[in-house]
């Protein structure tokens, strides 16, 4: 106590500075705990709200619902301990940053000035909520770099690092994974270096195993609370499934082109800083400069940005980690300034210029990310909340309504409004895989769902992929087992009834519009990629007909009964220049569907007819019309082969 008193007395300015900054961050974080204004038209925000609702209903993540962010953000509104950790996690991250800056800059004035500019940058550009997440791996990188620089990495320290990183892993999964990777890079580099130096290799391996064991033991203790949590809630296998199946699935379902975002100011800044820092580190390594904390921090942050960039390549998060690039820039810049200087105390003009550059970058960033359009437009975005209420009011007039619905493609706000236990995946975006959609179908069956609400205004839940493509298995089940009962605003209310045909002409223009939308299908590249990868699956299946023109094919279809179940349409375009192909498939009752897709460049395209909305139900194929420059065939595929096709 006396020591603390003496430290405070000696460093009163530092203590006041830290107290002010920490209080500011805590107050802002406290407000983040209480969400009041959500634009519910956005399915992403609806999903977040549903997750908070699920936490309040004591639903267990991984077991009862899909939740990818870790326990800290899941329980932050429900559990006082998690609330406190949430409020103070960025306080801790910022304090770590400040003390590392203090060590790096060695001068009080500069470390305070840089810390303030850094905080202003965080508040203005990515925002504190982003720092609450990405700031954790940033602070851990600084700690790991510092630890590997100053100490001989004793077993106690390795144990402590294992404990801290593992605790972060179950609180914020992705941040923990980044920290594990950065630790592994530093640890193995150091061990390889030691291996080269040791003459007695046996002694080296003995020490290596002891060090590894210390870290792993720390990891085990760090994960212990989480393991107890999983065992208590019987969710160990579900967490394992999340780790080994759901997590690898995520990049596959969420990948978007990087080039659309590459030329944004944030991305260009990060890539430029990354390149410059790599240059600088190479230069220092080749000049065989004495090892310095700068070098360790620079390498640590370069690896961290490379990891963030891998996520950025999948789906843009460039603005979220600009603060890491900014931190790397000002560390490299300062390192560059003092590179050949023996005495850094008398460089006032340089230091001032340095601070002005940092301030200038912050201001440029602020204006480059500021959206001037929002200044002139109405900030109160219209929400669809009222139409959700109207749908519920309508549902309450039905005698069969049991306060449960299923929402397609994903308006999870319905579950919160109805106080219903939501399905495992709240939208078809997360449930893009066949297995996930099967889980949703089981939910509909097991929970006695009488009504399904389809948002017909939402044609593509994400990335312009039509919902009938992404959510094909779910939609197939819905259209085969439910029929239209009512329309409210942009929503179709469907009632459980498998006898009616969804595609029967409707007098309601909204229903007919949706039917027309489902009958004009765009498959884009799917037939092309199926043609490339799935041709082996079709070997040993029966070719029903191979026709060089539509007349021959339709004569055959007139004479023979060919049902759509397990039928694969094979199309080969004879003209290389055609960019897209259109085919019209007609079934009984004058129903026909138009199918568009990208040309397959003189190769075979495969279309699984059962995945076209009209053929979700098994129907007789009456005719197929297409351009006579194409070759069309029909293959009857057995049940095993059809499982391999989309």
């Amino acid at each position: 106590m006396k020591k603390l008193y003496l430290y405070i007395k000696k460093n009163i300015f530092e203590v006041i500075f830290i107290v002010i900054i920490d209080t500011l961050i805590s107050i802002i974080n406290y407000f983040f705990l209480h969400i009041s204004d959500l634009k519910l038209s956005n399915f992403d925000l609806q999903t977040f709200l549903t997750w908070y609702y699920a936490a309040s209903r004591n639903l267990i993540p991984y077991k009862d619902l899909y939740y990818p962010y870790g326990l800290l953000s899941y329980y932050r509104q429900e559990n006082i301990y998690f609330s406190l950790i949430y409020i103070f996690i960025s306080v801790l991250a910022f304090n770590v940053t400040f003390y590392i800056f203090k060590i790096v800059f060695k001068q009080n004035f500069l470390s305070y000035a840089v810390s303030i500019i850094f905080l202003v940058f965080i508040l203005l550009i990515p925002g504190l909520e982003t720092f609450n997440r990405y700031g954790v791996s940033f602070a851990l990188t600084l700690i790991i770099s510092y630890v590997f620089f100053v100490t001989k990495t004793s077993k106690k320290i390795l144990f402590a690092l294992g404990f801290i990183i593992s605790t972060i892993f179950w609180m914020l999964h992705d941040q923990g994974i980044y920290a594990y990777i950065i630790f592994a890079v530093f640890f193995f580099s150091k061990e390889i270096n030691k291996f080269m130096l040791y003459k007695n290799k046996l002694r080296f391996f003995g020490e290596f195993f002891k060090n590894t064991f210390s870290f792993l033991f720390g990891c085990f203790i760090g994960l212990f609370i989480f393991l107890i949590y999983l065992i208590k809630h019987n969710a160990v296998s579900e967490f394992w499934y999340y780790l080994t199946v759901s997590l690898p699935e995520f990049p596959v379902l969420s990948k978007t082109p990087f080039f659309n975002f590459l030329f944004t100011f944030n991305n260009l800044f990060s890539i430029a800083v990354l390149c410059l820092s790599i240059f600088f580190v190479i230069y220092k390594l080749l000049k065989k400069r004495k090892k310095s904390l700068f070098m360790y921090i620079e390498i640590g942050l370069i690896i961290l940005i490379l990891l963030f960039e891998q996520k950025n390549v999948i789906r843009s998060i460039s603005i979220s980690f600009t603060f890491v690039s900014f931190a790397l820039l000002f560390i490299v810049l300062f390192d560059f300034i003092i590179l050949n200087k023996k005495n850094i105390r008398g460089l006032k003009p340089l230091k001032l210029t340095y601070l002005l550059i940092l301030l200038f970058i912050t201001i440029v960033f602020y204006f480059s990310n500021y959206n001037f359009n929002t200044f002139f437009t109405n900030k109160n975005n219209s929400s669809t909340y009222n139409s959700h209420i109207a749908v519920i009011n309508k549902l309450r007039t039905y005698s069969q309504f049991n306060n449960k619905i299923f929402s397609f493609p994903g308006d999870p706000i319905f579950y919160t409004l109805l106080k219903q236990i939501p399905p495992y995946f709240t939208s078809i975006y997360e449930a893009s895989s066949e297995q996930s959609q099967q889980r949703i179908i089981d939910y509909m069956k097991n929970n006695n769902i009488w009504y399904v609400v389809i948002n017909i205004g939402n044609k593509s839940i994400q990335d312009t992929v039509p919902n009938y493509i992404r959510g094909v298995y779910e939609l197939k089940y819905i259209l085969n087992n439910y029929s239209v009962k009512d329309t409210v605003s942009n929503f179709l209310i469907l009632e459980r009834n498998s006898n009616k045909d969804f595609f029967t002409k409707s007098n309601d223009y909204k229903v007919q519009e949706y039917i027309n939308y489902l009958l004009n299908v765009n498959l884009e590249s799917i037939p092309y990629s199926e043609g490339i990868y799935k041709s082996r699956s079709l070997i040993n299946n029966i070719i029903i007909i191979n026709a060089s023109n539509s007349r021959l094919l339709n004569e055959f279809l007139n004479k023979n009964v060919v049902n759509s179940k397990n039928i694969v349409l094979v199309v080969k375009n004879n003209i290389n220049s055609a960019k897209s192909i259109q085919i019209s498939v007609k079934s009984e009752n004058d129903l026909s569907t138009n199918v568009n897709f990208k040309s397959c460049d003189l190769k075979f395209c495969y279309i699984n007819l059962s995945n076209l909305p009209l053929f979700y139900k098994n129907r007789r194929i009456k005719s197929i019309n297409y351009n006579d420059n194409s070759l069309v065939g029909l293959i009857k595929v057995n049940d095993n082969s059809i499982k391999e096709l989309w």
Partner: protein
Amino acid sequence: MKKIIFYTTILYLIFLIIFRFSFRYFRTFFLPPEISGFKIVGYSQYFGYPFYYDTVVFFLLVLVPSLIFLIFMLHHKK
């Protein structure tokens, strides 16, 4: 040192210009992604956008200047 930076920048700019006019052609070397056993159709599977193309390009953009710089530095050292 100034010369090395100058030559690195020039070569990198040339690389960027070549890349700018050939990246669509370069993309055709990559096959469209397969709809795997997960049966997931996201953006890249639907539009046939090569899954690893961006990762390769990203590392090219970052590593090419570093490699040029490293080669010049090593040459200079000799």
